[in-house]
């Protein structure tokens, strides 16, 4: 029964990883940008939310609702000031630019908020620790909410991409930008919209990070690694690969942790490496793998 409980906790943890990975994967799918600032921006989202609800004296949920438009606006700024110029200079430059952005974000957060760890647990009341008991199983209400949010985000994204004109424009831009322009699509505006959308997802992940644990200005690095691992494990082919990748990573970590606490992260990294090696072994090398990864949302 312990095993069943571990699997359940891993599944729920996977919801958080999927939520975290969705923005990274989406941005990569549309623009071929591996955003190395992804984790740091999620932490920035958490800090912005904390500042909003503590300053205005409102609930964390209202703070989240106000933080998301701010993140969308940051996505527009990120695209216009950093990604758009760097995309013109080859694939390495966006990588370096977002790495620089991560360092900048971390250090600005450190200079403003100091090294103290922060969290929303005290402000979200019972939700931070309440759980449903189903026989011998314990189901965290917060983790369930985060899992449901991840499913809703991915489902919403699928509806957006498949049923709306902006979704078609995003898919066309991701597939063939030149051909998209010849179809009348303003691909620059589409990329700005995609960046704003990705940052909303990053903001949700930041809120989940603050709600389910603690964060500090330098917490972005590990979050980037988890998101990247979930994206790679999820593999190619469908939008829901991100969720599967997150769940596999979550279960691996939980099962590893149940054997020995020190194995928690190592188990996740091991699964990531194994999946990566298998995928690369199927042919084409890393370049080919990432070309196919790009198609996951379309």
């Amino acid at each position, binding site marked *: 029964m312990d095993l069943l409980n571990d699997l359940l906790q891993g599944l729920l943890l996977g919801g958080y990883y999927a939520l975290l990975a969705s923005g990274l994967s989406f941005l990569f799918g549309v623009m071929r940008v591996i955003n190395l600032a992804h984790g740091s921006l999620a932490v920035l989202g958490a800090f912005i939310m904390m500042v909003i609800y503590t300053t205005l004296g409102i609930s964390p949920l209202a703070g989240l609702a106000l933080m998301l438009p701010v993140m969308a606006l940051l996505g527009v700024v990120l695209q216009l000031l950093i990604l758009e110029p760097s995309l013109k200079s080859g694939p390495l430059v966006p990588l370096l630019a977002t790495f620089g952005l991560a360092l900048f974000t971390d250090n600005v957060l450190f200079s403003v908020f100091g090294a103290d760890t922060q969290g929303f647990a005290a402000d979200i009341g019972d939700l931070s620790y309440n759980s449903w008991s189903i026989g011998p199983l314990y189901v965290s209400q917060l983790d369930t909410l985060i899992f449901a949010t991840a499913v809703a985000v991915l489902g919403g994204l699928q509806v957006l991409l498949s049923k709306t004109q902006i979704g078609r424009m995003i*898919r066309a831009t991701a597939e*063939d930008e030149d*051909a*998209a322009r*010849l*179809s*009348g*699509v303003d691909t620059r505006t589409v990329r700005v919209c995609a960046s704003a959308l990705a940052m909303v997802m990053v903001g949700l992940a930041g809120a989940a990070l603050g709600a389910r644990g603690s964060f500090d200005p330098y917490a972005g690095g590990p979050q980037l690694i988890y998101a990247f691992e979930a994206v790679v494990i999820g593999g190619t082919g469908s939008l829901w690969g991100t969720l599967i990748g997150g769940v596999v990573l979550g279960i691996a970590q939980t099962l590893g942790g149940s054997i020995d606490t020190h194995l928690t992260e190592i188990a996740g990294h091991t699964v990531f490496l194994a999946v990566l090696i298998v995928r690369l072994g199927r042919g084409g090398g890393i370049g080919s793998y990432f070309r196919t990864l790009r198609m996951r949302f*379309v």
Partner: protein
Amino acid sequence: MSLLDVKGLQARHGLLVALHDVSLSLEAGDVLAIVGANGAGKTTLMRSIAGAHKPSAGKVLLNGEDVTNLPAHKHVRRGIALVPEGRRLFPDMTVKDTLRLAACRKGTWSFDAVLEALPQLLPVLNRKAGHLSGGQQQAVAIGRALMTNPELLLLDELSLGLSPVAVEGVYDAMPRLKSAGTTIILVEQDLRRAMAAATHVMCMLEGRVVLSGRAGELTREAVMDAYFGLNRHAA
């Protein structure tokens, strides 16, 4: 005022000059066939008019408006649509979504009107473009261009890589396009078909216009000579 005026257009691919001082003028309803050997600059000219290739000199005027340096999507929104060589479809997008994607201008070409002109698309509307035959893909590419309600339709190498039956299917739509009053520039290797479809013919060689005139006034021999560079100084 002409619908399209191209004045002294020059274009490069790196150091290679692909177009030398190309000029042409089209009235509404004209159908211009551009013929020429590989490397003559036909595709570069089409892409330059469509805004997909930035010219190094010269001007492209649409209804008197200088559109030379506008990005490709703004050409489309002003009424220039290109069916590019190789079709350039979105392989993972369904035919229906591909057509709907391009609906960016109002006009006579609605979704239903396009399907009426290209009935071969009806049974494959929900199939992904990458899974279609060459002829069906070409029909999708034409349909995508029509959905933008173009005043000027650029058709680059319509029959390239298609079976004779598929080519017939694609050309079956031509009368409907002409009757809609759409101005067309057609790049075609099949000289007989090009001269039959067009009101004007232009022959290019090594980036230059070496012969142009009304289709009825040019003999097949004169065009052939120009095609192979036998009278390159006669234009």
